[in-house]
């Protein structure tokens, strides 16, 4: 199958790659760029394990083609930590025991990253609604919600913006 040249910025790095037009973004990230932190849980955009940030929106990478992201800025879990320091969201998931098997975690954190920019101080209910596109089978969500609240506090106390 003939390939198409696309360019995008992934985790702040500009890149140009040839892809088959039918390649899903999630496969492009995982297979072509070796960014395997973004997972596939359902292939039908229900579970959110493949959530990435595209041009300032949370997006399920199993439901969009890589070619549709030509010219876009994409961020994955691998882009959260900066200069060897964990992002406040990563630190909060660790401190609040917001993960168990870890499979949903990258998608959860990337969604939280966007949610906290949309709403820097969300209530519990706002978190529950704002993250309802991401499924977790292990934690029962209670500690994930605590982690998002914890991250919100850290970020507002430090005066940092969520975006690194």
């Amino acid at each position, binding site marked *: 199958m003939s390939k198409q040249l696309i360019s995008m910025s992934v985790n702040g790095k500009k890149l140009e790659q040839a892809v088959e037009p039918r390649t899903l973004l999630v496969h492009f990230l995982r297979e072509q760029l070796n960014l395997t932190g973004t997972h596939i849980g359902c292939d039908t955009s229900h579970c959110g394990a493949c959530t990435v940030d595209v041009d300032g929106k949370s997006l399920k990478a199993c439901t969009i083609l890589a070619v549709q992201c030509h010219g876009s800025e994409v961020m994955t879990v691998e882009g959260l930590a900066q200069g060897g320091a964990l992002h406040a969201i990563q630190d909060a998931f660790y401190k609040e025991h917001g993960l168990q098997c870890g499979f949903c975690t990258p998608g959860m954190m990337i969604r939280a990253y966007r949610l906290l920019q949309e709403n820097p101080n969300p209530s519990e209910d706002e978190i529950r609604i704002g*993250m309802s596109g991401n499924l977790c089978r292990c934690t029962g969500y209670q500690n994930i919600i605590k982690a998002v609240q914890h991250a919100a506090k850290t970020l507002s106390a430090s005066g940092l913006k969520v975006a690194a």
Partner: protein
Amino acid sequence: MNASITERQAALMGMGDSRLRKEDARFIQGKGNYVDDIKMPGMLHMAIVRSPFAHARIKGINKAKALAIPGVLAVLTADDLKPLKLHWMPTLAGDVQAVLADAKVHFQMQEVAVVIAEDRYIADDAVQAVEVEYEELPAVVDPHKALLPEAPVLREDLAGKSEGAHGKRYHPNHIFTWEAGDQAAADAALAKAEVKVEQKMFYPRVHPCPLETCGCVASFDPIRGELTTYMTSQAPHVVRTVVSMLSGIPESKVRIISPDIGGGFGNKVPIYPGYVCAIVASIVLGRPVKWVEDRIENISSTGFARDYHMSGELAATKDGKITGLKVNVIADHGAFDSCADPSKFPAGMFHICTGSYAIPSAYCRVDGVYTNKAPGGVAYRCSFRVTEAVYLIERMVDVLAQKLNLDKAEIRARNFIRKEQFPYKSALGFEYDSGDYHTALKKVLDAVDYKGLRAEQAAKRADPKSPTLMGIGLVSFTEVVGAGPSKICDILGVGMFDSCEIRVHPTGSAIARMGTISQGQGHQTTYAQIIATELGLPSEVIQVEEGDTSTAPYGLGTYGSRSTPVAGAAIAMASRKIHAKAKKIAAHLLEVSENDLDWEIDRFKVKGNDAKFKTMKDVAWAAYHQPPAGMEPGLEAVHYYDPPNFTFPFGIYLCVVDISKATGETAIRRFYALDDCGTRINPMIIEGQIHGGLTEGFAVAMGQLLSFDEQGNIQGNTLMDYFLPTMVETPRWETDHTVTPSPHHPIGAKGVAESPHVGSIPTFTSAVVDAFAHLGVTHMEMPHTSARVWKQLQASGVACE
């Protein structure tokens, strides 16, 4: 060294410490290593051609169009596997299962052929291009109908076999009859009972549905004759044994690696046809082959759970003392009996169905039946059918309470096994290790103000204008976990022990290798805590490894809450072997006799002289540098722990539900879970496990169902239809605990991660039914969806239309 005892204790981060998880660093940075993350040079991709029919003959398979697609290397069918004798494989339950359908398909989505291609997109194209001609046969989806004389024979391969792995088969679609207890005694109790109740109930077919599906990467090295397979397996060592037996490759040249696993919940115990085909393909093609199923394949074809049609009878006195229990079950095992149970227990530990109660006589019988549905019957977050058993007895006790007009807390308290009766021998043959049910029940009732809740409920019931019905669910469950004593529990003849090998290095760090494998339970964190407390070395310097059969000692794996009860014990025992040697070295270094030494947290002290001591770290150095004359250098031990008994965790769960009379919607107002798992290793992780188990229980009780139409078409096998709760539906959980250590376990721990699943499911049903109890309703079938509850509101004449 002026650190206080408390400071030294804290520095270890040993048992009882809510230590943060060691495994998190990689997961939060996207550096986990799950099966689908593994890439090997030259790796090929496999995809599976599946049957659209539940029951059909295969008239022909045409591979030509698929093979013509550029990038397709092979298409394999049962005929290709036949010369290798791999078209069928043995199951863990003593049956056989088709690896690829051999002339006939037995369930929808059964594996018919596999294609191997250069990438996964081409493999999926090729699946569409394989042409299979079917002749449809009548499907049997109801296990009761499967046992009718005129029912079609599903398993023609078993024709004429009146004996199965578990005794007589009385019908071609019958798999086994399994009994426990004393039928005559149970019948006698029922015959002379002052009060009797009977209830039929169906525990629907559900699927564990871990977020990561099943898959593997098989890599055969033809030069060395070695097979390495990365696999989503909860039991890699057993898989290695089976793969060696099937392939003829010596076990020493088969390496199974379970890397990071994205949740298991029992779904990743069985050996699936996809694994076998990927391994065969790698051997045939001499290149690594990856197979990762998609979600639809996962839900449709891999290990389902439950599907038990149960009927119970209780005999009791007028004041609510239970005198007898009788249970009959028709168990739908699907097309092949590939349940994952200890070999001698085709109904698992279902005979725990006398629950937390001193029931003098009991009998249970389970009949396994073939139908045209996917095979399985795995222990979905429970120890082998314990979920079904707990549901049965807890429902029966509620039904009896209603009949006698007794409060459901009161009837439980009247029938509990009392603290002083432990160890307690149950009528169905278990010896319960320890428990204190009355204390736990009182704690819960006080915490939630049970009397206040009942008063509120009474007021609502008296008010016809109340927009909601209020229900209070109560469950007092006992599990049997930690399989198990090798004398009764084995998998394919291998005893269900587990193992630990610990090496303490010269500088005082240590590595522990285990026969289990975490799927999110946090073993790397908690196992290290046990060693830290036993050996006085900080848990931070203790590395835990598991899942690689080439490096870890043989173990039976992680399922049935067996990691802490069995492997946790192996850790303690291996540590104690090291401790014993360390003491000899310390005595030598301090020039005293062993009897003159006391152990204190992290050091051996000379009695009466605090200044004269050697820490474990000092001893580790000495073990490699100057051991006593005649002693082997080094400081390591291995222990294979064969438990003397199961452990019996228990809990009291209470749920308050409000049901809208206008819509049938249920709102879980409160869920209070008290668990007693014996000694607690890491309270933070325990709480996390309980939250997760409660949420899975909520899903099962309130929404999960794998249903089939008359033709055997599965209804709803995507996450659009199959209910996995999001944050929005999931209730808030309150947790509590008591601690009743197991007397036979080296550290007194019993296991916890499955209790919340087992215990919560009947609690939800108990609450929903309780909302209708004043209207004469005694039982409602799961799942309690709004539509079903709405129907009950209408039937009871309380719906606001």
